[in-house]
């Protein structure tokens, strides 16, 4: 089994676009042929546990979320800034009693809540550590790491940890940690995928995120259009259908034909709107993936279907 093209996949998207679902499906798509994939979340919402229908992920456990039908596995990690800070301090400083005192006085909560950029550097630091295990030949290493990242509005500052900690630490261990993280994020191994709906606001935010990520030097991968209305109509066929179609369905009277036609006209208008949104994404020059809306909701079967769609549409990425 060859290595995946990228070892760190960061998945962002406007709130409500289903980025957690897409991150889950991408992790499953990557976990083929015996590969091990780590799926991380950083917002403490237990979205991964909910998505895979497993009990909440706690502490630093990397529990298996799913074994894929083709022999791979996806493990989940819920990264928490407070735990990461304690772990970080334990690794770099021997604080002993002072460490406990810090906890008692709420220093960890305070620091991870409002120290500028510290939270982000801690969260990305844990992801960085998981990515590095493989190159260092450490145990529990993964073939790929997928990060269910903060929403598009915050993604550039979140990943640009170097900038973020500039105000906090100009030298010292936090600064050099940020340097190393930034190096991995800017490397060929890392890519950011943006999830969107084919609607005005999410598309606008996606295009803005592509712009904002440019100067950070972090590569943007695919733009994933989620919950696309499935239709047998190709764009050309859609363009050929009149806006107000007249129908003559055998067995329906005139009034029913008219009602069905009106409903169909609305569906067509919605499809045209989606298509127009899709066209706005084309100039961004990123591979565009379309994932169909599943009215039955998202369960494991739906995730597998989405994973398959990702594999088909991004063969280089997840082959």
């Amino acid at each position, binding site marked *: 089994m060859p290595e995946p093209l990228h070892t760190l996949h960061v998945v962002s998207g406007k709130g409500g676009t289903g980025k957690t679902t897409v991150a889950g499906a991408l992790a499953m798509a990557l976990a083929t042929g015996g590969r091990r994939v780590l799926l991380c979340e950083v917002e403490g919402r237990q979205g991964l546990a909910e998505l895979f229908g497993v009990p909440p992920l706690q502490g630093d456990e990397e529990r298996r979320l799913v074994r894929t039908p083709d022999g791979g596995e996806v493990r989940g990690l819920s990264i928490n800034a407070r735990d990461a800070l304690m772990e970080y301090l334990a690794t770099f400083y021997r604080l002993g009693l002072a460490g406990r*005192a810090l906890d008692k006085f709420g220093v960890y909560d305070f620091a991870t*809540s409002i120290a500028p950029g510290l939270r982000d550097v801690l969260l990305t630091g844990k992801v960085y550590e998981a990515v590095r295990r493989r190159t260092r030949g450490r145990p529990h290493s993964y073939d790929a790491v997928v990060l269910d990242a903060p929403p598009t509005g915050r993604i550039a500052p979140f990943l640009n940890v170097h900038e973020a900690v500039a105000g906090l630490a100009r030298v010292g261990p936090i600064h050099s940690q940020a340097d190393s993280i930034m190096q991995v994020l800017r490397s060929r191994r890392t890519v950011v995928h943006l999830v969107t709906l084919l609607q005005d606001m999410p598309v606008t935010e996606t295009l803005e995120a592509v712009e904002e990520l440019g100067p950070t030097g972090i590569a943007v991968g695919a733009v994933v259009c989620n919950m696309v209305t499935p239709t047998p109509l190709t764009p050309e066929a859609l363009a050929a259908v009149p806006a107000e179609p007249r129908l003559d369905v*055998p067995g329906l009277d005139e009034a*029913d034909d008219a009602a069905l036609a009106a409903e169909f006209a609305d*569906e067509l208008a919605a499809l045209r709107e989606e298509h127009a949104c899709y066209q706005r994404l084309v100039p961004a020059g990123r591979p565009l993936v379309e994932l169909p809306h599943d009215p039955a909701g998202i369960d494991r079967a739906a995730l597998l279907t989405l994973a398959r769609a990702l594999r088909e549409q991004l063969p280089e990425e997840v082959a």
Partner: protein
Amino acid sequence: MTLVTDPARAGGHRAWGRPETTPFLDVDALLADRDLHIVICCGSGGVGKTSASAALAVRAAEQGRRVVVLTIDPARRLAQSLGIEQLDNTPRPVAGIDTSAGGSLEAMMLDMKRTFDDVVLAHASPEKAEQILGNPFYQALSTSFSGTQEYMAMEKLGQLSAELGLDRGAGRRARWDLIVVDTPPSRSALDFLDAPEHLSSLLDGRLLRLLLNPSRGPLRFMSAGLAVVTSAMSRVLGAQVLSDVQTFVAAFETLFGGFRQRAEATLANLASPHTTFLVVATPERDALREATFFVERLADEGLPLAGVVVNRLHGSAVALSAERAWAMAEDLPEDGLEALALRAHATRMHLVERNQEAVRRFCATVPGLALTTVPALPGDVTALDDLRTVGELLAARDG
């Protein structure tokens, strides 16, 4: 063969959406209640809170209320329609409102940082304010702390409601008599209630009290502990950072009392009969589960709840079941318009059934709670006329 095309049932989703045993949420009656001064729209992200609150505000204004609507993060085109594209943190009159019933509408978009800055400027001496505003910890707190947006929405609500003049009694005509609040976009509806508390407890935590007054109160015995803490912090963060923290904390001291007081006052205001909450949800499992949590939480806190708005409910004016539509499509040429329309209808009917089932289950978990539905509309809600349409649908008992 005649299917249902009775206009009274056209868009019959309304009748299907709300189970018979569930009371109707009469939005017009709510808006007509002159003792009601604050309506807060809550719900998880992506359910259409902003357009629902804007639609309510427009409807109330055109029915004669003097309304101000506080929006948090409106879509650009909606913001344009309301005339609030620029973020200046001040209510502006909305053009194009029918004021013949004596009402008016002003709108504003929350500027979180500016609201926070204003609080600092209003409550600290100029010298201290300058120290606070320039402090990196304050800047992080006021721009990126996850609870700040909720806290500042509450703060702004407090400021707007002070202008209602409820405590000044009758006789003075206030600039507005109804405040409609949209809440910050968050995954959970509960964040609106939880986040301010989170911020208060952070600013009121043991660390800060210790850093402020190490020699006073029961904590004086802990000053040995303090030395350990500060020396550990300066080892890890460096002396500069520690001094930034101390400046921040010292400068913030004067504000702490004010913060707690105002948070308490705003909450007390919310528990009054002048206020009501509306929960907005879409007819999907996750959004409705969030709504259930929120309904329970409001009950726990003794906060008033008017009811639930189920937004974007799918319906159909064509009473042709999914199965029949599929069967009819089978007999037609595959790529003909008729077959396409029938298949699209079949897919829609599946969605309609799923929506109905989700709403039915939700209603069973919150018996007696009033509900209204808004059908899914083709296209985005952006223009004033769209808001009027949503308002009408919100208020309509049947489709």
